[in-house]
């Protein structure tokens, strides 16, 4: 079970990112969110929603989904990835825990105003 993002519905409002940051920090901050809206290509109106999971970085782009293996140089689906089995976790943006301690489930999903986030 995990979070599923429909990038075509996303309006890049960052509510999910702030909700996730709140879940981690009990305050409003964006640095520790595991879901992010990439905003670096503003003039091209091109953005993606990125979710950090336990082992993968799930990148939901308008043209499709890419899953990248963390601690490697390749895509998880390519079969060519070389994994570093001794990689230590980075404790800044911790992987999505589906807001396990919240009765109502993931906060990002609840705060998305356009229902671009769902559970699969």
């Amino acid at each position, binding site marked *: 079970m995990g979070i599923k993002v429909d990038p075509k519905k996303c309006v890049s*409002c*960052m509510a999910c990112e702030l909700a996730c940051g709140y879940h981690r920090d*009990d305050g*409003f*901050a964006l640095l520790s969110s595991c879901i992010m809206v990439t905003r670096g290509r503003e*003039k091209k*109106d091109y953005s993606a929603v990125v979710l950090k999971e336990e082992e993968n970085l799930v990148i939901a782009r308008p*043209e499709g989904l890419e899953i990248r293996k963390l601690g490697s140089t390749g895509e998880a689906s390519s079969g060519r990835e070389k994994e570093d089995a001794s990689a230590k976790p980075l404790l800044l943006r911790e992987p999505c825990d589906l807001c396990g301690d919240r009765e109502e489930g993931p906060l990002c999903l609840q705060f998305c*105003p356009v229902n671009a986030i769902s559970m699969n």
Partner: protein
Amino acid sequence: MEYLSSNKIAIIDLGASKTIQKELDEDLVKEKIGGAGITTALYEEYRDEDPIVLGTGLLTGTLAPASALGMVTAKSPVTGKICHAPFTLYGGVELKYCGFDYVVIKGSSPKPVYLWIHDGIADVNDGKEIWGKDVWISTDMIREVMGDPLIQILAIGKAGESESDFAQVCINYWASGDRWGFGKLFGQKKLKLVAMRGMSLLEIADPEGFVRKCKEFLSTIKSGPYAGKGGIGELSAAMGEDIRQWLEPIIHRHLSCFNTPFPTNTFVFLDEDPKLLKETEKKEPGFLITDVHGLLGYKKLGLSAAEACDLLRDCAKYGIDAVAVAELSQKAGKKKPDEIKKSLSGLKGSLESVGKGKFSPWAPSFTLSSDEWERRQAVAYLFGIHPIYALMSPEFSEEKLIELANLGTGLGFTSETLDKVIIDILK
């Protein structure tokens, strides 16, 4: 000020190129709430030095729906009144997180400068490299020099540098709600731009209570009349001037300002297929429409949607208010895009559409009376709610906002406090 705040005000003296910091006094917040309440108070405090005050609302940058608003408060060189211009997209939230709740920019610099406000530090930097550059190039240059495309920028173009009455302070590459000629004021002060970036944390007095309430309000809004809709076309339709079909062929996507449930902005592709889903090869394929009035102004001239948006792009690069350009073109009988483009430099004339009150007419009046509109704007500018969204979403009531403010800060605001501040800022 402990909650929903960085607890800091930057006082920047452009003449001396110096910055000092002050704490944000909790008593001031209790008395003036935030946003326009406090920017006005700070303006008064420094009024002898012709200040420009930047600020955010009490709830800006939180999970409160539509908490996207930042504002510029200053004396308009056009109307001579103390006015507030909104900046939204990610500008308001960036100011809130860059370590200062308010920034007072006083005096004038003898040479071109820009402000670099980052992580609780406010620097006055030499602006000679960017002075003379258009808004787009200036934004690109700052982002490249600093290495971060997420830097949010309030910039003027050549219109501001040449002190045109219609000069606008733009946000990144796009038009803002500045209809007061604040771009001219920036130009007079030799202030090319304000660049903002920060990653701070806002504490909340009652975190779970606040977030629970935000969630409740959002679900009410999500079942409201605008649910599932979006874009500048919907705004025009709600204003009774439906341009949806006219604009449709060039729409790429509708975009929200920070945490705003309704996307009030529309990105159009002018040099690329609007249906393209992947990243464009072209670096600058189109334009983000943030101001419905400018678009409507060009439509009235009989232009196609593509021609109108192309002109909007030119206005934003030049840093001039498209509404003024459209109105003055109409008056002068100019209807050809090339003709209008040529007229940007040295544009003169008087406007009908200029705002009469304190708040920018950027937010449409929809079907509201002017008193209703003004009160709703005042509320939006105090709490930091997107001014257009505040008008579209009356269910996000004053009582609800006060309730959120109290959960967030624990300061015990009442409707009497709100009434008093509103009277105060409308004086």
